């Protein structure tokens, strides 16, 4: 625009989209950096909001608060169980929806979509109303588990379904031609191939469960999960150890993600071994695509 600045200005204008993107990425990462930074803070009072000084004390003492540990263990147990249950029944649902034409398929799809389109307060308060009026459930771990499985199912179905839609069914036909029965075909061919999808779905369910606050807040009774502990502690000042544990969970999740990506690459290699079958039987027909109705 103005004299010598012209070149720089042009560069800025040509890369405007990328510059905005980098700024947005920074915006997304800043809070994580703050959580990490403040896990080394040595706060003067009970509130960990202003930087006082550097200490490793809280990392050394990460598991030194009994109530916090108890909440964390509850959350982990809950997340593992909710993940197992929702992944199994969600995968079965996804198989039904992708592989079969049946009466009530649209209704089933609707049933799966609608919980994802419902605000958490509504789900939480509806479940609480149900538990209160039925009266035979005591609020606590079991009601939390019921709730967590409920909101995880839909996400599992969506993730596994997308994997099944891209599935080459010729591979199953081949297994059957080679003498495998239906169960063997499922265990030795189908399952390994959709495993990355199931694994991804399980990770998502785990993340949703361990992070859930709103629905848990309604249905926990006196049971305290990790997010509920944080909410309770927020009023009286959150111990720095919470930041430490949050970062440990963060690094742990990163490592799991890395593993998942590696596994996925391996699975992709597995499928790419088979020779091209240009013009062969069923070539070009997207595998598993149900006849659209």
């Amino acid at each position, binding site marked *: 625009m103005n004299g010598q600045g012209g070149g720089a200005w042009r560069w800025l204008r040509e890369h405007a*989209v*990328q510059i*905005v*993107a980098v700024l*947005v*990425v920074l915006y*997304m990462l800043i*809070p*994580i950096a*703050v959580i990490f930074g*403040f896990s080394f803070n040595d706060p003067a009072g009970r509130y*960990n*909001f*202003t930087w006082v000084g550097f200490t490793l004390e809280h990392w050394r003492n990460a598991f030194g608060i009994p109530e916090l540990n108890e909440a964390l263990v509850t959350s982990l147990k809950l997340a593992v169980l909710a993940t197992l249950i929702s992944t199994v*029944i969600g995968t*079965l*649902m996804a*198989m*039904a929806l992708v592989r*079969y034409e*049946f009466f009530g*398929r649209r209704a*089933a799809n609707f*049933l799966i*979509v609608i919980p994802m*389109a*419902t*605000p*958490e*307060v*509504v789900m939480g*308060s*509806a*479940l609480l*109303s*149900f538990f*209160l*009026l*039925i009266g035979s459930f005591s609020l606590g771990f079991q009601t939390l588990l019921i*709730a967590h*499985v*409920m909101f995880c*199912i839909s996400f599992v*179905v969506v993730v596994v379904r997308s994997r099944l839609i891209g599935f080459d069914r010729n591979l199953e036909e081949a297994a059957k031609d080679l003498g495998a029965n239906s169960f063997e075909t499922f265990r030795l061919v189908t399952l390994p191939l959709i495993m990355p999808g199931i694994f991804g779905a399980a990770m998502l369910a785990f*993340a949703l469960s361990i*992070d859930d606050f*709103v629905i848990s*807040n*309604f249905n926990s009774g006196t049971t305290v999960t990790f*997010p509920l502990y*944080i*909410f309770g502690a*927020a009023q009286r000042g959150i111990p720095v150890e*919470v930041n430490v544990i*949050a970062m440990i*969970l963060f690094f742990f*999740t990163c490592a799991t*993600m890395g593993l998942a990506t590696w596994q996925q690459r391996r699975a992709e290699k597995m499928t790419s071994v088979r020779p091209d079958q240009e013009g062969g039987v069923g070539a070009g027909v997207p595998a598993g*695509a149900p006849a*659209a109705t």
Partner: protein
Amino acid sequence: MRRRVAPYLLLGPGAAWLLLFFVVPLYYLAELSLNSGVFGSYEFSWHWENYSDALQLYDTQFVRSFVYAGLATLFALLLAYPLAYTIAFKAGRWRNVFLFAVVAPFFTTYLIRTLAWETILSDQSPVVSVLDFLGLAPEGHVLATGGAVIAGLTYNFLPFMVLPIYASLERIDERLIEAGKDLYASAAQTFWRVTLPLSAPGVVAGTLLTFIPASGDYVNAQFLGSASNQMIGNVIQSLYLKQSDYPAAAALSFVLMAAILVLVLVYIRFAGSEALMGEEAV
């Protein structure tokens, strides 16, 4: 025969769980919202006044929820589109790094992320000094304002906007974009007339995935707002868990769900349904 029963067997456990613990509870929510009486002795009595009373008392929080959620969705869209576009078309070997950055916030707890914003926006923070310098922070103060709540909502739901837009941009056949250029469209014309319409399903899905949870949220208003920034979620939460006024809370919850459902249906009529139904359109 087996083929006919198989899908129902596969579907059974999950469908039963969703019916019993999602659909049936909605019925109980409706029933509770028509109860009358005082705590301890609520009884069902078609007490429709719960609805009119609750709406009259809390209409400001209702309107505020939709305004905050709407603004947060708009800001999220403005931030997410350039990022998704960059990841899909410009990032090259940096693509995975960008994608990691988008999902990274999910790896830390929602509440702690929101509390981190409390630190970032506190009055002593350098961020607030900069905003103050730019004239964006009246009286050097950001925390406990509507702006802070909207910023928190925008931040927390941004990945839900980025990912669907990225997915739909990534699926675009680049030959269509090249065709636009071959036909002498400028870069801007190609974007507005080819790229943007083709990414519409992602934009629709992203706005819904942002707006719906944002309008029911109460964590951001709790930590980043003040008493005058309470959203409808805060009211429902407090009526249920602190004041045990179940019928009023249930009525509000039901209205919130109905309002969102209507908004979503209207929106989908305009924007097409393939986004919500996912790959079903295939």
